[in-house]
């Protein structure tokens, strides 16, 4: 969701400036206007306070205590333990392995989804003449699909005797235990992750491509630049801002990966697909509320750091 953030920061500034006489008009409103504004914003503000503001403070607060499930009804009875909780979480082998698994999902899924999304966007943008809407819709359908329903299908399709293996068998290929062996379970989760996010990458790349002026290509073609040359020297540099946004968006989304591993494998076998989010959910289920919250806060930090680093790395050079 960080995409939105950046875009806003860019557009909000621009649109305020663009409006004629905007700055003078913006500052003062009539009393009625001010009252209406706060009244109109109150539902959002109330729910923001209740479901983001208070929980954020609570998460940081509770991660510094020994809170358990029993304390949820009476949160004031907990003991302050400082950063002990964080130390315990960081040194916990389960959390460490969840941390590395999460990084692995990001490293595997983000480039594949993005490469596939870009290739599809390029083909749909000007590589074919007909059926563009059909292909776009077909690739996009997994994005809007209900993840639980999707996971049920994947579990069935990739079960030992399911249609995937029977098709592989018909072709004389080996039939792996997709959900039961660590290496294959990771593969299945990655496949499902890529299946679910390629459509998003494609749509965003398409939006980016449509902003590239056609004349540049014509000029390059006149100068004798071939397809790959045009892609490398024109399209990719011009897509840089789009690429940045998609990279951040995809990284953040895979850092938070929960449904795919939880629903397909419960984080198993042997914890091989357990992500940080699944670990946090598990600790919550075990009643280790403070550990769970410390894990959430660490995940939040990780997301923030990664987003900032990526923005710096991919910012256009002047």
């Amino acid at each position, binding site marked *: 969701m960080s995409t939105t953030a950046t875009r806003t920061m860019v557009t909000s500034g621009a649109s305020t400036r663009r409006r004629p006489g905007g700055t003078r008009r913006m500052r003062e409103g009539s009393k009625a206007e001010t009252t209406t504004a706060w009244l109109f914003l109150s539902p959002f503000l109330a729910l923001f306070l209740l479901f983001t503001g208070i929980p954020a403070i609570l998460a940081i607060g509770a991660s510094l205590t020994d809170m358990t499930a029993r304390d949820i009804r009476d949160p004031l009875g907990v003991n302050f333990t400082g950063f002990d909780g964080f130390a315990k979480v960081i040194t916990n082998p389960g959390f460490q392995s969840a941390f590395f698994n999460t990084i692995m999902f990001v490293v595997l899924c983000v480039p594949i989804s993005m490469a596939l999304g870009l290739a599809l966007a390029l*083909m749909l943008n000007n590589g074919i003449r007909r059926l563009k809407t059909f292909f776009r819709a077909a690739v996009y359908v997994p994005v809007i699909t209900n993840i639980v*329903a999707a996971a049920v299908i994947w*579990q069935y399709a990739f079960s030992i005797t399911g*249609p995937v293996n029977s098709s592989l068998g018909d072709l004389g290929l080996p039939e792996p235990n997709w959900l039961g062996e660590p290496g294959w379970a990771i593969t299945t989760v990655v496949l499902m992750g890529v*299946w679910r996010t390629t459509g998003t990458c494609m749509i965003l790349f398409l939006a980016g491509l449509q902003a590239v002026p056609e004349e540049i290509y014509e000029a390059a073609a006149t100068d004798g630049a071939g397809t790959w040359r045009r892609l490398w020297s024109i399209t990719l540099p011009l897509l840089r801002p789009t690429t940045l946004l998609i990279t951040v968006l995809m990284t953040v989304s895979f850092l938070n990966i929960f449904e795919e591993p939880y629903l397909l494998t419960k984080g198993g076998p042997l914890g091989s697909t357990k992500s940080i989010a699944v670990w946090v959910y598990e600790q919550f289920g075990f009643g280790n509320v403070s550990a769970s919250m410390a894990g*959430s806060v660490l995940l939040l930090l990780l997301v923030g750091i990664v987003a900032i680093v990526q923005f710096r790395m991919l910012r256009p050079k002047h």
Partner: protein
Amino acid sequence: MKTLSPTRQALNYTALIVVTVFMLLPFVWVFFGSFKTQSEFLGNPGAWFPESFQIDNYIQLFADREFGSYMMNSFVVSGVAIVGNVLFSAMAGYALAKLRFRGKNVVFPLVIVSMIVPYVALFVPQFVVVVQMGLVNSLVAIILPVLILPLCVFIMRQFAHGVPFELMEAARLDGAGEGRLFFRIFLPLTGPGLATVAILSFLTSWNNFLWPLVVAQSQDTYTAPVGLSVASQASNTISFGLLLAGAVVVLLPILILFLFLQKYFIQGVATAGLK
């Protein structure tokens, strides 16, 4: 770029067809699988097609499971979420884009912040809040967090910029009150924005999983996805046929809407870049 050689185009079509087949295969499997009988799953589990199209799974799904009530809960949650988001985010977007007041520069960053914060990081403290409010195990608790989505506020603010100030100034001079401005001038001019918000809030609330999983603690508050996941985890006792029929039923509302309103689905994601 104007002329693409026929070979190039043929290659592109081939690549697109291959990718599309892989993207759509799961839907083919679920569709055909949902018409198989239990004995077919046991006899020839890997077969792609059912021997004959039996609708027994669907009948059983709605007859002796509580699936009907889960679906009802999902519809209630999503219905309220759509109404809430359309109304509240139009109001908030209108205020942020079209009204002049002090504090605007504080409120808008809040919208952005609440869009960025990953929900995985907040569901445990949110649960504590809901318990304190005495709302745990209720549909209200499931609805509240998706009742007004920051993303929808953002989208409505973007659409609101398209409504000319001059029009509103003119109406003000004619003596129209703030409420009248909003209902008579603003809302009719932001139709596509409202449609996008409606679709987006439907998708979010219908597909919401982790939060209902945490909050719904008894079967009468399960939403359809929660019911489906609970059933699939007890899959030793339940048949694949029933599960697949359940998956079809959960997918159907979204797929039907997508068929007709594709533009708004894609617009929502393109403007917002959400997951």
